[in-house]
């Protein structure tokens, strides 16, 4: 008899699920809240939002262990999971079946978006100190282009969907919601969270181009 901890399959799936919420989902919420403060203007944003973050001790270690590594695992193992699924939403066009497929598609799209998003800000900032000093103008320049605004809006909507649908699905996988009613009410709560996070993210984006 094979015990669960002697078979990595179950633990890997649960780690993938857990990382989606903590730390990655938590970071997404923090990130959207942090950038929603763009409305207070260039000076406040650069000094009190970005400046405060960059003044944190052990920042690089936190970035690597709380954000980068869990994200890489979640993305990499997510691709493995997505490869083993086939869409049938045309045959069975129910909401959760569409969302099942969108969860996988959005995962791949978010990965591509993040390559650009992280590259444009954090990675480019490694050898271009002007970006770190005045991130507000850097983002303002980018988001003033309607094409990139739409790209960012897509990235935002897909990320929020992926988190909130993942949260709904996770509650069943971990056995928190079992009855149909509980699953339905949890779905309403996740939808509410999605609306709030989208509003927060959009607010932050508009703050850069106001």
């Amino acid at each position, binding site marked *: 008899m094979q015990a669960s901890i002697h*078979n990595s399959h*179950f633990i890997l799936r649960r780690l993938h699920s857990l990382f989606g919420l903590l730390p990655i989902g938590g970071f997404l919420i923090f990130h959207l809240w942090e950038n929603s403060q763009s409305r207070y203007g260039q000076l406040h944003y650069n000094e009190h939002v970005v400046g405060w973050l960059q003044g944190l001790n052990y920042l690089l270690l936190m970035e690597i262990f709380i954000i980068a590594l869990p994200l890489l695992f979640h993305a990499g193992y997510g691709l493995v*999971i997505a490869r*083993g699924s086939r869409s*049938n939403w045309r045959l069975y066009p*129910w909401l959760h079946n569409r969302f099942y497929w969108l969860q996988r598609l959005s995962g791949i799209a978010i990965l591509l978006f993040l390559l650009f998003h992280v590259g444009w800000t954090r990675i480019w900032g490694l050898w271009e100190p002007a970006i770190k000093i005045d991130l507000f103008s850097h983002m303002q320049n980018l988001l003033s282009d309607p094409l990139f605004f739409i790209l960012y809006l897509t990235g935002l909507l897909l990320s929020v969907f992926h988190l909130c649908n993942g949260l709904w699905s996770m509650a069943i996988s971990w*056995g928190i919601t079992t*009855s*149909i009613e509980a*699953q339905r009410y949890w779905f309403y709560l996740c939808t509410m969270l999605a609306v709030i996070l989208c509003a927060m993210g959009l607010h932050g984006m508009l703050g850069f181009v106001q």
Partner: protein
Amino acid sequence: MMDKTIDLDIRRQDTPYSPPYWQAFSIPYREGHNIVSALMAIREQPITRDGHRVDPVAWEFNCMEEVCGACSMIINGHPRQACSTLIDTLEQPIRLEPLSKFPIVRDLMVDRSRIFSDLKKVRAWIEIDGAWDIHEGAPRISPEAWKENYLYSRCMSCGCCMEACPQYGPEKAFIGPDSLAAVRLMNNHPTGSYHKQQRLHAIMADGGISDCGNAQNCVRVCPKEIPLTTAIGELGRQSTLQLLRDLFGKTQ
């Protein structure tokens, strides 16, 4: 004016390895026909709509009251039982296809033996006897628990939930919603719960519960209205607790 007919388009396949093809049949209309009785009418006169005499269509059926699961097929795009599907409720021409997730034997007949081997993998039975007589009567079950268990006991291994599941397929290890529901049923029986841990370990391996993607098609296509997604949620909780026991030790 022509007499009213029942038109069927049937996906056929002569051997497990030959290519599939479609054939159209028309039979005289009769009130109360279901798919099985229509297929029987075709078997009496296996002549296609354009007048060719062909081999009769092969399919499986048994109980004729939606409890054996043998006559599952895809009817107008949806997996269901041929015996309980009335012609009068369907749009014509009626398209009949074999289930797509199982190896085809011939025409509408598929080999569903994988369902049985997956049930064996998860120990979906209750051992009432040991190596000796245990001198104990049948354990009592509360009416509430019995009522819940009954919902799951109606599974007839028809294959509809697996057909609709985007995670289930011939090339994949996932055991499917029906085997998980069987584990839910056996784990909740007082005698069956003796082997709860073995069953949980079986569904915590490759192809087990964590391969479920929560698309929830299974619960919508199940002809017996078994709360499959509730079973998956309950087993999610049981396997979470089992993982904690495996990692950190038991509570007692």
